[in-house]
Every structure is written in structure tokens, then in C-alpha cells.
């Protein structure tokens, strides 16, 4: 028997050995190989990127990246270093959210030399300017960081920061209660009480603006009838959903955009719950006894929808009882769900939501109502959104968004249901523990009672090159190490970080950023304008030789700045 076990182990080992013969474990993803195709895809005429070798000599050449014209559909025309510590962003149209976007961690700055040395893919060895430096990433178990003694904002008050992960809220709480962790994220609603009843722990409310909505695609029957959509809007008791399935501090949504976002809740608030009026509308539309449909959702925990299954079941119950609509509940695999909803192919009612990336109303309205997700767009609304996106002044934009919100209320592509509250928890001994509305907890502003702070989040980061990541778990680890030109303060306002300031010209299309002097990267090199330009170029310029990353999607560059420039087949489509 012992022999048998030995044999089995040997067999497994042999298999692994065979697999590892080709690849070495410490290999950093063969940059030479992967960057080659990127180069060949570059149409030479459209590129004006200076070669990365030039960027390593800051005193001499100044780096720049640009698109030939604004026809590629993106927001940025060029980014140029105009001095060793000055960078100029030239935009295609004014962007009221420019600074808020700059503060987003995918646009963090790394040394140009490092990006070059790693072939544009520093996946597990980021070099930043942040308060913590990466020590070790023990795959599958934890990430260890140590304090950056030379941090320009002053060294953090403790020595070691450990990132761990556990998928279940209850396991995270256990870690906290046993004293193994100091700070945990994303409490389940049912765990609030546990934390509040434990005097050693504190509940930290997370003010991230979000929306959970019920979507209806207007190209499918019977949702092509606006009266049916309005009936659903009036026939669902949203208060009951929030009271029963959302944690304390959640609110019924009166508008699609939360009120904490400027211009979010202009206009008339949502319909009152009125099942009789709703049934009358249904009858008018020809469905006096309701109809058969389905509710689709994905089983993914998000702050806007912490318990998808329970809420889907509840909505089915309400549709049946209030409106006589008979809905089956179907869980759709997350990827397929997103795929189908985003192209407007989801029949029936779908449950989805949105968490803000940056505090601007465009991040809610433009992302949802310009595309095909809910079927045919509302032309007047799209026009209004165009106007709003080009209006930098908040007060000036207010009437535009008032009209936009009223249009949403009238056409009901979605029923906004709830703004979910989320909470983190920490040991009471951690001083200054707080959740900022945007971005990850800022651990350098906290003081644990020892030398180490252990943080437990939901999942392991995918990589630490956040220019090419989108998941919150990766971004929160990146934020400890890396910084951008701007940063969010604890109230969610963008404040200067690696830039001393960025100032717009009169029409808001040219932003000049003065780069902070005397900042050192973790490897000891100095921050200069070329590092800034190269960090941006690697992400936004699809033809850049270092445009490699992890999956190569550079989603946030494409999505927040409109499109990637110099992409091989970039047509004029928006």
C-alpha cells in the first residue's frame, strides 16, 4: 500500500516534470515573444510614438504619444512631455471628468525603464512611488508589502502590509475575530449584526456610489410597449426589496445616478409603488392577466446586488402577486450574461447594476443609455448626453441632466431599484480605519497596534499591472504600491498626487500638468515627465511596442478615454 502511494506520487511528479521541462517556473511570461506580434500590427504611418529607448534619457529627448487625428473615436489626441517635469494632454473634446479619471489607478505611473525592461508587462513586479513596496507574492496565499521609508507623503506608520483573500464573508469575519486580520472588505448583509455586537470590531461604511436596476430590452415582446415597462416600474415595491435584502444604510433609488454624484438626481423622482395603476396600464397594453416572461441574473456578489438569487426570487414573487406576471428565474453564467445583455440580446427582465468608477454622472448615464443594452436607444436622450458630456461647468449641465432623467422616467429602459450600502470592518484598535468612496482603503493613513496590518479581501489579484486589469481585487493591491498624477482623497475628490497640479486651458481641451519634483520610485530612480508619458503610451497606444500588458485588453484606457489610439483597424466608429 505504501508502495502504491509512492508510485502514484511519482506518476504525478513525472507529469508535472514533463510539463515544466519546457517552461521555467520563474519565467516572466516571455516578453520577447509576446511583444513581437504587437510590433507587426503597427501600421507605421499612424505612429508617432518615440521609441522607448529615447524615453530613458530624460534630459535629452522628450517623449510623446499621439493619434494622427481625433477620428479614431477616442478622447485624447496627444500626450507630450514638454519639459522634464511638465506633461501636456491635448483632448479631442472637453472632458468634465478629466481629473477624476486621472486619479484612477490603471493610469498609475511606473518608470519608463522598468516598463521597457519587463517588455511592457510588469505583471508581478510593479515599481511605483506609493506608500508601500512589494516584497513578495506568495501565489495562492498572500501578498506582502513593506513601508516605503522615502514616501513623498511621509512614511506609513507601520512596517508590513499583508494582503490575503477569502471568498466567503464569514471566513473573513472569522479571521478578524481571531485577530489574524485587521481589516476586511465586503461584509454580507447578514454579518452586520455580528460586527456591531462585537465591541472589539468596528463597522466601516463604504460610500461607493452604485445602482442596482431591473433592465428591460425594448426590442422583445411585450417589453416593446412602453406601458408594460411603466407597469413594471410602478408594480414593484422597491422599498420591500431594500428593507429585506439590502444591508443597513442602503437606499431605494429615485434616480439611476446616485445623488452623491453631482447632477445625479436632477428632475422628477421615480414612480410611487402603485400596483393598481400598474395593472391598469397592463390591461391597457393588452395584458390584463399578465404574461409569461423570465428573470435572468448572474450569481456574482456586487455591492449593488449582494444577494442576486434571493432578490431574483423576490422580484418574481412580486411580479406574480402585484401584476400577475409569471416569471421564471434563470441564473446565467456571468460571462454569457454580460455578453448577451451588452448587445441587447437578453429577452425578458435582467438584473444588473453598476458601481461608479469615478464621480461623474457620465459614468452612469453614458455607459448605459448610448448602447444597445436595452434595445433601441432613445434619440432625444442620446442627444442630451452628448451635450452633457461636453459641458464642463456643473451648474450649466444641471438642466441637461434634469431632462435626461425625466426621459428615463418616461421611457423606463430600466427600473432603478437600490443604491446598495456596503461595509468593511476592522479591529477597533486600528486607528483611522475608513473606506474612501473611490478606490481601495488607504492603509498608509491607518495605524494598527503593531508593526503589521493584515487585510483580507474577496479574491486574489490577477496581476499587479493594473493598466491592464479591471477587477477590484487587483486594483486595491496596486493602489498601495502605485500612484497616478491625481489621487482620490478620503471624500472622493481628485487631489494632486504625482502632479503638483493639472490645469485646463480656457475651453478645457488642453491640460498642462506640473509633475511633482523630487519623487523617487521604489527602485531609487527619479520620477520625470517621460515616465508619465510612457506609462500612458503603453496603455493607450495600441501600436506602442510595449503595449503588451496581461490580456492586452487595456480595458480602462479604451473605456475611459474612448478608444485606444493607433489600433490596427480603428475605424471612425464611436
Amino acid at each position: 500500500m505504501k508502495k502504491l502511494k509512492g508510485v502514484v506520487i511519482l506518476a504525478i511528479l513525472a507529469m508535472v516534470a514533463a510539463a515544466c521541462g519546457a517552461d521555467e517556473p520563474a519565467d516572466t511570461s516571455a516578453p520577447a515573444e509576446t511583444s513581437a506580434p504587437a510590433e507587426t500590427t503597427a501600421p507605421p504611418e499612424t505612429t508617432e510614438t518615440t521609441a522607448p529607448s529615447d524615453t530613458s534619457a530624460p534630459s535629452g529627448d522628450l517623449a510623446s504619444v499621439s493619434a494622427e487625428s481625433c477620428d479614431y473615436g477616442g478622447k485624447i489626441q496627444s500626450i507630450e512631455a514638454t519639459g522634464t517635469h511638465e506633461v501636456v494632454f491635448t483632448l479631442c473634446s472637453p472632458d468634465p471628468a478629466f481629473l477624476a479619471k486621472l486619479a484612477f489607478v490603471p493610469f498609475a505611473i511606473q518608470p519608463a525603464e522598468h516598463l521597457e525592461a519587463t517588455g511592457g508587462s510588469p505583471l508581478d513586479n510593479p515599481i511605483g512611488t506609493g506608500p508601500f513596496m512589494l516584497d513578495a507574492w506568495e501565489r495562492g496565499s498572500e501578498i506582502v508589502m513593506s513601508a516605503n521609508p522615502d514616501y513623498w507623503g511621509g512614511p506609513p506608520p507601520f512596517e508590513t502590509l499583508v494582503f490575503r483573500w477569502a471568498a466567503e464573508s464569514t471566513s473573513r469575519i472569522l479571521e478578524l475575530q481571531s485577530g489574524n486580520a485587521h481589516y476586511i472588505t465586503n461584509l454580507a448583509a447578514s454579518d452586520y449584526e455580528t460586527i456591531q455586537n462585537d465591541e472589539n470590531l468596528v463597522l466601516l461604511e463604504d460610500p461607493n456610489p452604485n445602482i442596482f436596476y431591473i433592465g428591460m430590452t425594448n426590442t422583445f415582446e411585450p417589453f416593446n410597449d412602453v406601458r408594460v415597462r411603466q407597469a413594471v416600474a410602478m408594480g414593484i415595491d422597491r422599498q420591500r426589496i431594500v428593507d429585506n435584502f439590502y444591508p443597513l444604510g442602503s437606499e431605494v433609488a429615485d434616480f439611476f445616478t446616485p445623488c452623491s454624484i453631482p447632477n445625479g438626481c436632477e428632475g422628477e423622482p421615480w414612480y410611487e409603488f402603485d400596483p393598481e395603476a400598474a395593472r391598469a396600464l397592463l390591461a391597457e397594453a393588452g395584458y390584463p392577466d399578465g404574461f409569461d416572461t423570465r428573470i435572468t441574473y448572474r450569481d456574482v456578489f456586487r455591492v449593488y446586488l449582494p444577494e442576486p438569487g434571493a432578490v431574483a426570487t423576490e422580484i418574481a414573487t412580486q411580479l406574480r402577486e402585484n401584476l400577475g406576471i409569471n416569471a421564471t428565474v434563470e441564473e446565467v453564467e456571468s460571462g454569457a450574461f454580460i455578453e448577451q445583455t451588452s448587445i441587447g440580446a437578453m429577452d425578458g427582465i435582467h438584473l444588473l447594476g453598476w458601481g461608479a468608477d469615478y464621480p461623474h454622472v457620465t459614468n452612469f448615464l453614458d455607459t448605459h443609455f448610448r448602447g444597445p443594452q436595452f434595445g433601441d436607444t432613445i434619440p432625444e436622450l442620446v442627444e442630451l448626453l452628448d451635450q452633457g458630456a461636453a459641458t464642463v461647468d456643473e451648474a450649466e449641465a444641471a438642466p441637461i441632466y434634469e431632462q435626461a432623467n425625466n426621459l428615463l422616467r418616461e421611457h423606463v429602459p430600466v427600473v432603478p431599484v437600490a443604491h446598495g450600502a456596503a461595509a468593511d470592518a476592522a479591529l477597533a484598535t486600528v486607528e483611522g480605519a475608513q473606506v474612501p468612496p473611490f478606490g481601495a482603503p488607504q492603509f498608509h493613513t491607518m495605524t494598527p497596534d503593531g508593526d503589521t496590518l493584515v487585510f483580507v479581501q474577496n479574491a486574489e489579484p490577477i496581476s499587479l499591472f493594473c493598466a491592464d486589469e479591471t477587477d477590484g481585487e487587483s486594483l486595491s493591491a496596486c493602489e498601495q504600491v502605485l500612484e497616478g498624477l491625481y489621487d482620490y482623497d478620503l471624500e472622493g475628490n481628485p487631489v494632486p498626487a504625482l502632479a503638483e497640479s493639472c490645469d485646463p486651458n480656457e475651453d478645457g481641451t488642453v491640460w498642462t500638468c506640473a509633475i511633482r519634483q523630487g519623487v523617487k520610485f521604489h527602485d531609487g530612480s527619479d520620477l520625470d515627465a517621460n515616465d508619465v508619458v510612457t506609462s500612458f503610451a503603453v496603455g493607450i497606444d495600441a501600436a506602442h511596442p510595449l503595449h503588451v500588458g496581461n490580456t492586452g485588453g487595456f480595458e480602462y484606457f479604451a473605456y475611459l478615454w474612448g478608444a485606444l489610439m493607433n489600433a490596427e483597424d480603428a475605424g471612425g466608429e464611436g
Partner: protein
Amino acid sequence: MLGYIARRTLVAIPVLAGVLLVVFLLVRLLPGEPCTAMLGERATPEACERFNRANGLDQPLPVQLGIYAQRIVSGDFGESIRFSRPVSTILLERLPVTAELAISALAVAVIIGIPLGIVAARRHNTVVDVGAMAVANVGVSMPVFWLGLLLAYFGAIVLGNTPFALPASGRLPAGMRPDPFWEVWGLDLGESGFVYSMAFFISKMQIVNALISAQWEELWAAIKHLILPTLALATIPMSIIARMTRSSLLDVLQRDYIRTARAKGAGDRLVVRRHALRNALLPVVTVIGLQLGGLLGGAVLTETVFGLAGVGTALYESISTRDFPIVQAFTVVIAATYVVINLIVDISYGYLDPRVRLK
């Protein structure tokens, strides 16, 4: 005998090829593109197109199959789409966790299961027998994940404020990073190569690593974290082994040669130990081999419940995110392990029972 081994091995080859093909097809048949699975709410059609091109997913299926088969045969598992890291590296990080869990579960199953079966057989039809078999019957009827959750509750809450509290998730406490054994031994294995990979694999089996490098605190922590998952995973094989041992021993005890030994005045204890046990344990060995294969399925559930970063959780995650290279490689490795174990069991069966060879 050699002919028999060769024959059995030859039969295993088309099975493995079939496994490769089935895995490839299943993975491509999954609904949902890897792009939307990975990029989530923020995926745009243009980004997906770029993504697919970058990952070779825009090629026609037969071409993808060709590349895949060629790579697997040459032992190259490719690179994960989601992590941009070699799949073999990820495998090397994940496999030791599962291996350690499976081996310790099997060890517990054998150490408890065989004596339980022996006791039940020797006290046939007594309270002990009925009790032991009741335990074994309930054991095979329990969902692994349910038992795991109950154990987690017991270890973390019931024992919560006692010194016997057991951790219900993770492999080691936060911040504990045992040194790899070769560093303790003062060896320099470099950062790559076959020897390094092997050593790395062994060092990731935390108990083994801590034991051979005399890191006692780490050893204790590693054992403590493994107790609950091991118990959860061990219950089913333990029950099966106990039942098999019992019925096999009962069967042997009725044979003529045992009666002869008894008639010659040999004591009960001696008869069982000297004569009966050896013959009775032969089929049990087979069962043990089969269980190791079965444990791989149970490991998916156990690792999910206890938050262990093993092959099972990696496989499940990568199916959800459509990380084709990982799904393919991991499934193939699991299935290959399974086929190889079955092959070894087959061969050992043929070795133990010559009649089988003639079939």
C-alpha cells in the same frame, strides 16, 4: 506479466487521447466568450476582438485543436489567458496543495478505515460490528461539502473560544512564510530547471517542507490548517475502505485454510494476523488506489469550502472565467492522473490475481 502490462498501457493511450479531445471540445462548447467572462461589465466588442486576436481565439477550431494537441504532446501547456503566466507554473503552485490534501485524506482513511473494518469483522454481528458499519454507511452517504461546512462550524465556532479551535480557511496563518527546505539546508538550486521545479513542488507541500527543514512552528500551523479539510475529504474513502476490509476479511475467514489453521489450534489473533489479513487486504489495496482517483473530484468541493488554493478551485475558477489553457491543462492532468492510477490498479490486480491476466 510484461505482455499484460504492455497491453494495458496500450489501451490507456487511446483513452488519454480521447480525454484530450473531449476536454478540448467541452471547453470550446462552453457558452460565453473568455473575453466577456474576463473583462466583465466593461467589455466592448472592439476590446473583445483585440482580446481574441491576442490570444489566438480568432483562429478556426481545427487550427486551435492542432496547436493544442501539438503543445500538449510536447509537454507545453501554454499560457493562461487571464494571468499571462505559464500554465505549468500555475500547476506547480496549485498541485502540491491538492496532492497534500488528497494524500493526507487517504492516509487518514487507511489508518482509520482498515482497523475499523478488522474490528467489525472479528466481532461479526455484535454491537461493535453494527456500530462500525452504521458509521461507515452514513459516511458514504454524506455530501462532502456539507460535512466540510459542518466541520468548519464545529472547528471555528463550537471550539471557537477554546484552545482547540481549528482554522476553517486558508493553508497557513497570515504573514507566515516558511523558508523553502533547500534554503534551510543551504543549497542553491537557482531559479529554474527541473531540479528546482521538483524542489519547489515539494516545498509547497507545507507539512513536508516544514518537517524536513525542522521549522516546528510552521509545521504545527500547517497541520492545524489541514485537519478539517482532511477529515471532510477522508470520510467517504474511510467508510468504503472499512466496509471493504470487513467484507473481504469475513470472506477469507470462511475459507478452508483458515478453518484448518483454527483446527490446528492456532489462536484467533494469530489466525487473523498471520493468515487471513494478508489475503483479505489484497482487494482493499485496489479500493485504495481507486479512491485516490475519486478524491480528486471531492477535492474541488473541499477546497471550495475551506478556501484552499489547489487544483480544484483553480479549475472551477478558470471554467467560470473561460481561461481555456488552464481548464485544458488541469483537466488533462487530472484525467491523466486518474487513468494512470487506474492503470496501476489494473496492473497490480493482474499481479495479485493471475487469472485476470488471461482475460
